[in-house]
């Protein structure tokens, strides 16, 4: 029933996390674990691809908030790629576009890291 999945792909120094399904209070810890794993491996150039994410609540948004400071301190970032309109609207409501770079294409987000 609960079709939430987290996948990871490393593209040289950048790691992409793919979220699929519902990101809510039930599934947020799986996303948290995936980010923690990257931080533990010192892989802090992170892109979160949301193309298959159908829903996000504050529990999911809290995970982004919980890691961003630590990741930036380590000279990395969390960039967001390919959110659908419904998910983007929730980000927008909370002013996330001010704090996070959001890209329409995953490749653009990866390219941005290459440029820095």
């Amino acid at each position, binding site marked *: 029933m609960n079709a939430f999945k987290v996948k990871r792909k490393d593209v040289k120094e950048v790691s992409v996390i793919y979220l699929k399904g519902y990101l*809510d*209070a*039930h599934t947020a810890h799986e996303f948290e674990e995936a980010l923690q794993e990257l931080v533990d491996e010192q892989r802090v150039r992170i892109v979160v691809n949301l193309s298959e994410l159908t*829903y996000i609540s*504050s529990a999911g948004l*809290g995970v982004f908030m919980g890691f*961003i400071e630590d990741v930036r301190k380590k000279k990395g970032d969390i960039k967001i790629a390919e959110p659908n309109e*419904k998910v983007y609207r929730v980000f927008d409501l*909370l*002013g996330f576009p001010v704090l996070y770079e959001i890209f329409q294409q995953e490749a653009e987000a990866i390219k941005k890291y290459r440029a820095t």
Partner: protein
Amino acid sequence: MKRKTKSYLLKIPSQTDNLEIIRNFISGVAKKVGFEEEDVNKIELAADEACTNVIKHAYQNDESKDIDIAIKIDYQKLTVVVTDRGQSFDMREVELPDMKSYLAELRVGGLGIYLMKTLMDEVDYRSKPSGENEVRMVKYFLKKEKRPVK
């Protein structure tokens, strides 16, 4: 279109893996009574936030407890009432974060109440003498500027 008063009720164990069922219940009713997709999504998210608060705070993850979710429809609005019998928590006492400084300070958590108040037209909370706590959230069929002046 004239709508008759109708009620929909769901009693469900206080578990995060039931949030999906709760969302489907809420969005199913909101869609059926004629809300547009954007409003359906808002009502669904606000109800999720209210129930998540109950599961985590009022019942402190005690899965033996139940949450009651009632949706009432009248001719002008949809009302969601989420009732629990756990620890009371008065969201009226929680100061709404100023989002700019909130983001600047990167505070974690506490976004749920801000979302509920932003997504719905009215949100209220009360603890009854019977020990029940009730969050009541309203969405009008018409946007404020289109509603007849009383």
